[in-house]
């Protein structure tokens, strides 16, 4: 057993999952290149990236569900579009060169970062008439309320048709490129469908866990998962996801947006390097 190598895998999974849980971006897109820099093959690193996304998503979910920053109805509706798109993308894989795809994704990540970072203040404000009993989703609709410091913030997403259309398109692109797409889902939810930044991040953290679990099943069928390394990633990502959700709770929505924007720029750089 190489203890230094094992500790490095745990540490990398923890750091990337923390960042991923804050912005709802997953973190595999950063973890996988880091693992390959350490000498691991891409075919071994890719499943570990998925494991980190799933473990981080589940760990962050505990706190995010309690704070009302996951809107499951919104997640299910938009994921129907994203998953349908991803299926189309997988079957079309090879239709576009990977280089072109990576540049497109990097361009989108930078554009999303600029949009998120430029916006000032909070779109949705706390409502003094609401109590913690009001935190959660509103039955029969996509509206809800989340806990922010001592206040409760109500919200209602809009432009759903446009948003689901773009989510489907994002699904096609991510299916084509073989990436998770958390970095597309969070900004689309926040900037197009106008979810609060924290709810967009929390909801995206849930949906990327779902997407990653499907991809992991396919990799398991191919026998590509090294269980001992996956367990190390589980340990790091469970801690990282928990820490990320705690940190996110303490940050103000504008800071979450700027942190997400920073992570998007890092992701764009990774994508350009891959291209």
């Amino acid at each position, binding site marked *: *057993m190489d203890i230094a190598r*094992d500790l490095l895998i745990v540490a990398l999974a923890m750091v990337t999952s923390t960042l991923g849980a804050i912005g709802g971006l997953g973190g595999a897109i950063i973890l996988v290149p880091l693992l390959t820099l350490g000498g691991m093959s891409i075919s071994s690193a890719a499943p570990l990236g998925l*494991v980190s996304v*799933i*473990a981080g*998503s*589940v*760990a962050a*979910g*505990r*706190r995010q*569900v*309690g704070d*009302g920053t996951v809107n*499951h*109805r919104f997640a*299910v*509706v938009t*994921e*129907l579009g994203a*998953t*349908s798109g*991803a*299926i189309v993308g*997988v*079957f079309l894989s090879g239709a576009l060169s990977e280089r072109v795809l990576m540049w497109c994704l990097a361009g989108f990540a930078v554009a999303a970062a600029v949009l998120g970072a430029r916006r000032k203040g909070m779109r949705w404000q706390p409502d003094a008439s*609401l109590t913690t*009993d*009001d*935190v*959660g*989703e*509103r*039955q*029969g609709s996509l509206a*809800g*309320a989340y806990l922010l410091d001592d206040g409760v913030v109500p919200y209602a997403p809009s432009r759903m048709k446009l948003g689901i259309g773009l989510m489907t398109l994002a699904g096609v692109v991510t299916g084509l490129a073989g990436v998770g797409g958390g970095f597309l889902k969070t900004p689309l939810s926040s900037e197009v469908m106008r979810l609060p930044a924290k709810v967009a991040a929390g909801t995206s953290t*849930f949906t990327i*866990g*779902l997407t*990653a*679990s*499907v991809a*992991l*099943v*396919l990799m*398991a*069928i191919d026998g590509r*998962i090294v*269980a*001992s390394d*996956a*367990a*190390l990633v*589980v*340990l790091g990502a*469970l801690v990282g996801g*928990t820490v990320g959700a705690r940190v996110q709770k303490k940050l103000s929505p504008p800071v979450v947006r700027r942190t997400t924007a920073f992570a998007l720029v890092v992701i764009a750089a990774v994508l350009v390097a891959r291209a």
Partner: protein
Amino acid sequence: MKTSRIDLSRIIGVLVVMAGVTALVGVAVGGAVGRGLDVAAVTALAAAPGVRVLALAVAWVRVRDYKYAAASLALILLIIVSVIGTALWR
């Protein structure tokens, strides 16, 4: 404002602790037993998001929120079809 959280937060918390302990013991023990524990931890976590969607569908049926219950069942069906389709296609 009605919610359908069905103590999801607590259920997820228990799963996180169990998966973490299982993975930790698996890494510490090593060998065939350790590998079995590693696989169990990863499998439990990988199943969690799908089970969560299924649990939400059940919760939404209970509160007569049929539109979103149908959407979540459609999502599960779509995922199953995509996994089978992709596995066969490759």
